């Protein structure tokens, strides 16, 4: 793909792009990975602590505690988003704050906040899924494909026997 795209460029454009590439500071991949690891891990650690609280103090079973835990994490993320803090954390944390459920909540809350000025129906309602929508669509598609593969290669499991 990349080569095919490059072929469309004129020689002058190609020459310039090579020159520009040299001056382009690279994304600090190792540093970003390290930060994502720390931040993502920290968010998971907080999640685990919340879950433990539900298990020990509220009498949930470990399995049932995960639902309220996710709700609490989403609430925390939405609060941080509306206080204008989450995007600052994300610049440092990168994927570490984008991948967990808090990132998903942030994408919806930020879009809802941003488009509030266009009204509740077409603004908040219509544009809330601007960023989260693709995740849901392709998540569902992927789940569907995996389900079919599972059915083809292991039909017994679907039959329930």
């Amino acid at each position, binding site marked *: 793909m990349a080569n095919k795209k490059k072929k469309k460029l004129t020689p002058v454009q190609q020459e310039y*792009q090579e*020159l*520009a590439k040299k*001056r*382009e500071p690279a994304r*600090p991949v190792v540093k970003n990975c390290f930060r994502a690891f720390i931040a993502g891990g920290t968010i998971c650690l907080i999640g685990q602590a919340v879950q433990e609280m539900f298990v020990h103090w509220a009498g949930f079973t470990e399995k049932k505690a995960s639902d309220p835990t996710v709700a609490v994490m989403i609430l925390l993320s939405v609060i941080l988003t509306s206080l*204008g803090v989450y995007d600052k954390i994300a610049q440092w944390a990168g*994927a570490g704050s984008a991948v967990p459920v808090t990132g998903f909540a942030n994408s919806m809350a930020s879009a809802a906040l941003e488009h509030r000025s266009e009204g509740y129906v077409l603004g908040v309602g219509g544009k809330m899924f601007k960023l989260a929508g693709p995740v849901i669509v392709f998540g569902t598609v992927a789940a569907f494909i995996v389900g079919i593969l599972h059915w083809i290669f292991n039909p017994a499991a679907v039959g329930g026997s």
Partner: protein
Amino acid sequence: MLKGHQSWLFENKPTILAEATVVGPFEGQGPLANDFDIIHGDLRMGQDSWEKAERTLMEEATKLAVENAGLTKEQINFFVGGDLMNQIISSSFAARTLAIPYIGIFGACSTSMESLAIAANLVNSRSAKYALSSASSHNASVEKQFRYPTEYGSQKPPTAQFTVTGAGASVIAQKGEGPYVTSATIGRIIDMGMTDPFNMGAAMAPAAVDTIQAHFRDFRIEPGHYDLIVTGDLSKVGYEIANDLFKKHHIPMQQTVYKDCGMMIYDYEKQMVQAGASGCACSAVVTYGHLLKKLRNRELNRILVVATGALLSPLSYQQGESIPCIAHAVSIESGVENT
């Protein structure tokens, strides 16, 4: 008067009678804070949407410029303005408030100098007694339109630029003590096939170099003619590339001082702005706020401001189009006779 292929010489010396700059809180923490007329503490400017906030910036800047010129808005013949919003709503709505006959323009971040060049040309050709030029941008409204919601947590790469919140305006008159707008070069579109909207500096640098080259060719001058040449918003990455291109095309920029407005407005150490600043307001507030002050107190005598613009839309980018870029140059002189 047409000079060379794409330049205007303003032989009647249109004067910048007065100017005004209004900026947001983040710009107020930067090194040029003392040069701005109004610094807002609130990014929303007390409005309930980012779009209204940007409109407020432009309304305040234009009103203050007219006031500083000692005029009333009824005396201004034309208002030339533009911004980055779809259908340039900030300028058009500000023009509604001002009720001055209005020429709306779009040149992305090159709008600041495009509007000044057109306003100066109107005055120079006696088509206007007084003309008002203005350009604005707002960080949050631009993020919302071109990128992601402002509070969305996305990590920006080191090539990304931070859009300036602000507006700059100037009143051009037929007579006055200067600074004078002496010439302008209108750029052509240069597209080097760059597609990364997080690396605008690299996309725009060739356009800046092309216009600067055309300016020197049309007026048969060399960079040494100017005390200072500034580009609009190339920022770190684009600035380095522009320097490479000057060398490659044998333009002797060492004769003068070359700077970039995108690298002047924020403090890289203290403010998290990646490569630097961008936006219509970037070159507008640096020129009208910082550089004109230096021209007025004779620290500088002759400058060339080359505002650069990336003419992409969110739609064209999503459809995989490359980024067409443009640059317009305007030369401003302090009014001291040549020595």
